[in-house]
């Protein structure tokens, strides 16, 4: 156990050094890709938080959109500084999540997919239909964040400063979600998923925990949306459409959702694959489709289960050899 912790802190330190040094060694385009990758990591990890209670919400990307639209309205239309609009926008997404989770937690499986999908689409339709204040199909402009309002200190329209802003927010979000995941609350959420009846019988409020997970997940999705919006400077309903949701599902299923690291691995590996296949960009969705089907057939617990699978199959081979030896 002690050794494991040391190992992990060594790896985290190496990762931190790479993340700090990397942006100075690569082109501006790649720095922005890394920024987007971190946004997607927050999205995927917050999605996994909801799945720990068993709900695979299809409204998660629209929740990210709620955060993006909220910050566009709060910081753009009302002129409130970025540092306040970010948590407020997260809160807006969290509250939206709370309100739609009420009908959602009463549903299961098929109904949950469809209801969450429909709830997300309803939110998106509102952005399209109500041109005031959401701007319809053309969307909204988002201002560039300022370190101290009115003082030109750090230029967040540049790729590298924004990268570090995103890095700091990502680290904060991930450590908060990690804390939740390993707390009593996180354990109760997992209990709700694996043994709902048993969890209820020992006095765990199953629906309450599902709604809590949904709200916390939506809050962090909203934060991811804020980071996305302030980098793109403009948002439109199309960005938060179903295609993005499908990608999110593929990331999390491919990486695996049992461990905290699973979704992160999924996002990182598939993003790198997407970059490698950039010349064949049209074919990328098909490659994703094939990967996800093969993953579900041959590695249903995702990439995170690969090490233990390899270990156990190696063990089997070893046992077979022994038996042949005898």
């Amino acid at each position, binding site marked *: 156990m002690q050794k494991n912790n040391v190992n992990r802190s060594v790896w985290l330190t190496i990762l931190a050094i790479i993340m700090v040094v990397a942006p100075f060694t690569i082109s501006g385009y790649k720095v922005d890709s890394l920024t987007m990758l971190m946004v997607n990591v927050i999205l995927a990890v917050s999605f996994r938080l909801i799945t720990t209670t068993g709900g*695979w919400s299809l409204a998660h990307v629209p929740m990210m959109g709620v955060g993006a639209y909220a910050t566009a309205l709060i910081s753009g239309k009302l002129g409130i500084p970025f540092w306040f609009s970010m948590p407020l926008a997260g809160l807006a997404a969290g509250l939206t999540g709370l309100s*739609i989770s*009420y*009908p*959602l937690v*009463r*549903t*299961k*499986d*098929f*109904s949950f*997919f*469809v*209801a969450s*999908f*429909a*709830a997300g*689409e*309803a939110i998106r*339709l*509102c952005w*399209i*239909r109500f041109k005031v204040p959401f701007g319809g199909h053309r969307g909204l402009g988002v201002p560039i964040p300022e370190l101290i309002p009115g003082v030109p200190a750090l230029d967040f329209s540049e790729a590298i400063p924004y990268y570090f802003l995103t890095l700091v927010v990502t680290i904060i979000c991930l450590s908060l979600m990690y804390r939740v995941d390993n707390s009593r609350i996180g354990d109760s959420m997992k209990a709700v998923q694996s043994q709902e009846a048993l969890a209820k019988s020992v006095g765990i409020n199953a629906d309450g925990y599902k709604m809590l997970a949904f709200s916390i997940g939506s809050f962090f999705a909203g934060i991811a949306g804020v980071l996305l919006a302030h980098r793109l400077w403009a948002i439109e309903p199309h960005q938060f459409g*179903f295609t993005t949701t*499908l990608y999110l*599902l*593929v990331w999390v*299923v491919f990486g695996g959702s049992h461990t905290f690291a699973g979704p992160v691995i999924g996002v990182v590996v598939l993003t790198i694959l997407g970059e490698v296949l950039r010349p064949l960009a*049209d*074919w990328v*969705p*098909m490659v*994703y*489709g*094939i*990967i*996800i*089907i093969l993953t*579900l*057939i041959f590695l*249903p617990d995702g990439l995170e289960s690969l090490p233990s699978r390899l270990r156990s199959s190696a063990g089997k081979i070893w046992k077979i050899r022994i038996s042949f030896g005898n």
Partner: protein
Amino acid sequence: MEFLWQTILNGLMTSSFYALIAVGLSLVFGVMHIVNFAHGEFYMIGAYTVWVLFALLHWPFFIAVGAAIVIVGLLGLVSERLIFRHAHGNVLSGFIMSVGLVFILQVAVVEIWGVGKMKPVPAAFPQILNIGGVSTSWQRFIVLPATIILLWALWYFLAKFRVGRGLRASAQDPEAAALYGISPKKSAAVAMLLGSAMAGAAGAFMAPIMSVHPYMGHSVVWTAFVVVIVGGAGNIKGTILAALIFGFLTTIITTLLDSTIANLVNTLVMLVILAIRPQGVAGHAEE
């Protein structure tokens, strides 16, 4: 008065389209427990088949429709054999697999026929139909009798044929059905064949009315899901009832306001129904 009759006619036509697309989805869910998101893509391929055979090769319309039904049905059969069988009734895996299939089919269609150009399908029956002062085109009207015939055929198959009855038995209790010699795998394959064929039929009949493009399945599959959920997943009678409810609701709101509001209202109605009756309007509460 004329407005009322016009609304009833339009409502019936919309409902029959909803029923055609949603019943197949409901059937597949009832038997296999697969939330088949690729149902919309099956619909899209049905429309493309009609575009190729009827608009490009000038085959007779109904033969093109028949070909679309057969092709999409077989596509469903193949996807059951290659993909969905491996979900083993796990709803989440099945759903995500169908998402993968969506990606594959969309890219395939885009790569074969391109995305930019319009795929115009001329009306096979451009004449105007007049019934007591209300009018519509024959092309739109034909969906109504076609749906009635196809649903009747499905009912006849499920009620009178041994395979059809086996299918219903598998949907109710796969283990007990297996004890009576009904293979759940065979039932799953037949359900997928029929369900996909219905999607293909819907796409084929809508091709001259809707615009044919690789992403046309998205909005349709959403509506179909809403209908299935309100009808009670796997419940075909409930699905038809829900199709009628939403067909009329959509028609009335679209006539009075606009289609975006109609979609919004449909969704809210569904969420409210789920909050009150999670098992759907016609479903039975689980014990």
